[in-house]
C-alpha cells in the first residue's frame, strides 16, 4: 500500500506524517502525532468526540482522511489553553462541573470555541443546536450549556 507524505499545520506547528490513504485525520492525529485529545467515540460522525477545526471550520476528524489535511490549518483541543493558562471555556467547564467521564469534553471544547468565535453572543437555543453534534451521556447537557453561555458572557465583558 502506497503511503502518502502529508505536511500540515496543527495548532500553529508545522508537522508531517506518512499515512495510508484509508487512515482518517483522527487516526493520524492520535497515532502519528500523539495528539490524543480528540477521541474516537463512534467513528462515523455522529458523536462529535473527535471534533477539530480545519481552516477554521468545525469538522469531525473521523470523517476526513489524513491525506486530505495536506496544507491545511488544523486546531485541536491541545491548542486551546495558552501553556498552563486555561482558556475561559476550560475554566468554566470545571467551575460548572460540566463533565463527568470526560470523553466528550475535548470535542465540546473545540465545538464551543468555534461557536464563540463565530457568534460571541449566542442564544441558548443557538448554543444547543450548534452543540447538537456533540453527544454527552453523563451530564444531561445542562451544565455544558450553562458553562458555554457563562463563558460567552464573560468573554464579551472582557473584550
Amino acid at each position, binding site marked *: 500500500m502506497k503511503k502518502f507524505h502529508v505536511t500540515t499545520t496543527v495548532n500553529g506547528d508545522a508537522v508531517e506524517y506518512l499515512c495510508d*490513504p484509508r487512515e482518517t485525520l483522527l487516526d493520524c492525529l492520535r497515532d502519528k502525532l500523539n495528539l490524543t485529545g480528540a477521541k474516537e467515540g463512534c467513528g*462515523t460522525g455522529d458523536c462529535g468526540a473527535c471534533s477539530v477545526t480545519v481552516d477554521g471550520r468545525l469538522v469531525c476528524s473521523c*470523517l476526513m482522511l489524513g491525506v*486530505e489535511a495536506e496544507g491545511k490549518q488544523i486546531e485541536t483541543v491541545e491548542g486551546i489553553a495558552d501553556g498552563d493558562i486555561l482558556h475561559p471555556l476550560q475554566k468554566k467547564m470545571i467551575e460548572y462541573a460540566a463533565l463527568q467521564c470526560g470523553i466528550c469534553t475535548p470535542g465540546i471544547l473545540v465545538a464551543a470555541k468555534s461557536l464563540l468565535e463565530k457568534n460571541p453572543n449566542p442564544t441558548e437555543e443557538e448554543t444547543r443546536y450548534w452543540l447538537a453534534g456533540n453527544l454527552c451521556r453523563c451530564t444531561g447537557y445542562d451544565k455544558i450549556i450553562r458553562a458555554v453561555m457563562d463563558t460567552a458572557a464573560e468573554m464579551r465583558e472582557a473584550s
Partner: protein
Amino acid sequence: MDYHSPASFAEASALAANATGITRFLAGGTDVLVQLRSELVTPDTLIDIKKINGVRDITRNADGSWTLGIAATGAEMSEHPELGRDWPGVVEAMDLIGSTQVQGRATPTGNLCNGSPAADSVPAMVAAGVTVTVTGRDGTREVAVEDIPTGPGKTSLAKGELISAVNIPARGENGGDAYLRFIPRTEMDIAVVGVGVNLRLDGDTITEARVSLGAVAPTVLLVEDCAKAIIGSTLDDASMEALAAAASAACNPIDDKRGTIAFRTEVAGVLAKRAAKIAYARAKGEDA
C-alpha cells in the same frame, strides 16, 4: 485503496474510467468515510475532487442563475449572504442534514450521488429545477437532478462520469420555495417524509409549480399531479386538499421502524400543504 487528487474533472473522469473494482469520488466524505469505516464499501480507487480549481465556489451568474461548486458545503451555502434569499428552501433543506460538524463537510452533490431516497437536499433541488453538469469521457452533459437517482444507493451516472457543477436556475420575480421534512426528533435525523415546493405567482394566482417528495419511494419523486393541483389556484382550501391528495397518491413508501406506509402516505399530504403555504408566502415577499 488507491487515492488520487486530480487537478481537473477531465482527469478525474479518465481516472474513474480506467479504474477497476469499486470507485468512489470524495467531496465532503460524510457518506464515503462512514461506508469505508463500517466496511460497507471499501473503494479500490478513491478520487478526491476537492483539489480541482473552483469546486468550493458559489457563484451568481449574470442571468441570475447560480453555479455551485461540487465541494461547496452546507455551512458555506447557509453562510452565503445572497443564495438563501433567492432559494431559501434549497438552503434550508441542505442545512437540515446532520450536525454543525457534518455541515462543515457535507455537500448537496454528495447527498445526491449517495442515492438515498431520504436525502433532504434532493427534493428541494428537484422542486427548484436544479440541474447538474456531468463530466464524462465524451465531454459534459446537463442532467436534471431528478434523473440522477435510480434507486436506493444507485445513480444514472455511468462509469467514468461524475458531477462537475450544480446549476440552480435564476429565482426570477414572484417566486418562492420551501422544504419541510418529518422526523420524530427535533434535529439530526433521517427524513421519514420530505416535501419540496417551488412556485411562481401572477398576482395571487400560481402560474408555475414544482412539487417533490422524498423518503416515500425508492427515489425522490417529482410529482406533476401535485403541481397541477395548485397551478391556476390561489392556494385556496380546495386546491390545498387536491395537493395533499395528489401527494399521498404518489407515495410508494416502505414500512420500517421510522414510519409505516400509512403514516408516510398521510404525512406527505400534510407536509405538502404546509410547504406550499410557506413557498406561497415567500413568493408574495412575506417572511415565512
